[in-house]
């Protein structure tokens, strides 16, 4: 079943088609959202909202590009809005006041440094201006190729390459701190 048949079946009310779509796309969507948010649970929440939204508006999908890219773009934009709204700080204590257990056990310092670096990557990417942010996120967090990004965003491939190169250069100072 191709993307158009998926969409038509879902619009017609085929529940199994929607389930198949969720099974196929849940992994990439949750991964992309987790890389943006840094929290797997929050990533699942955002991915769930994305699927519900897609279920509502899939009739408006015009068939340009892939259904995967369309869903991924919805999820990525929603996750970026969540990041912008929250701007959460990394908690050092849980609700009871006890220090958080650091995963990794034997190498706690390494894990702390790694978590700090991950947070730095998330914040640096989230603070990029558009269209660099969207291009970087779709390419490295959403795992889309440049041709797929061009197809989804409606921009020429050369423009996407330019945005990608300039976005990477803008990230360079922030990532060089660690």
């Amino acid at each position, binding site marked *: 079943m191709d993307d158009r048949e998926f969409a038509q079946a879902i619009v017609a009310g085929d529940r199994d088609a929607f389930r198949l779509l969720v099974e196929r796309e849940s992994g990439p969507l949750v991964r992309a959202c987790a890389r943006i948010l840094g929290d797997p649970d929050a990533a699942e929440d955002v991915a769930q909202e994305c699927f519900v939204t897609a279920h*509502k508006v899939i009739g*408006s999908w015009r068939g340009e590009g892939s259904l995967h890219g369309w869903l991924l773009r919805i999820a990525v934009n929603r996750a970026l809005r969540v990041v912008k709204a929250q701007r959460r700080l990394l908690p050092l204590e849980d609700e009871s006041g006890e220090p958080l257990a650091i995963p990794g056990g034997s190498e706690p310092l390494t894990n702390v440094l790694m978590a700090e670096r991950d947070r730095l990557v998330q914040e640096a990417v989230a603070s990029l201006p558009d269209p660099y942010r969207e291009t970087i996120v779709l390419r490295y967090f959403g795992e889309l190729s440049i041709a797929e990004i061009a197809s989804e965003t409606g921009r020429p491939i050369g423009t996407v390459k330019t945005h990608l190169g300039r976005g990477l*250069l803008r990230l360079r100072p922030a990532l060089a701190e660690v």
Partner: protein
Amino acid sequence: MIPRAGGTDSQGLSADGLAVEAELQDYAARVAPTPSAAFMDRVMAAAERNPLPIAGRSPRVRASELVHAAGRRLGVALAQVAGGSSIPLRVRVQAGAMLVVVALLITAGAALATAGATTVVTWVAGPQAPAAGSRPSASPALNPNQPSDTSPRSDHPNGSNNPGNHGQPSQNPGNHGQPSQNPGNHGQPSQNPGNRPSDHPNASNNPGNGGGPTEGPKPTAAAHP
């Protein structure tokens, strides 16, 4: 599948760009959770709680819903017009009479407007009506007293642009170019009584006879002093 550094899509990137790309790819490889087992059920349950909106339904279903909605609205409107049992009969009769009066007023207004328009058209078109004896002009918008190449030429040898003169230039209608201050005589003997040359030494200085004999009634001899 996480895109690796140095691929086709990485061509053209600077060294700094490639370094940042490698950093992002390492991050993506580290942060790659899989959905939980309950994720699928949660999504399906959430989708069930949010049925498809009208825009996402099939055209047949949408058309059926629109027809039903229109029928409901029409029924409500008719019930409101009829008034139901909540509006007294006297009020409903008054409302109906008022509607009839309004309809009559609208009809009378339309009739008056039509009559007025007809009057105005008649008044405007009246001066352009062709004179008796002249041919209708092919250019009705033109003044018949002005020369027109499109109007038919007069058959009269003395053409006149004046109606009735057949294209002959003339300031005195009916004189056909003859010098006369008395219109309508055409050089013929005057029909006007009197003023014929008098035998009296003090002949009258009243113009208009052109010296021609008159066939009018014999004038009374002037008793000019």
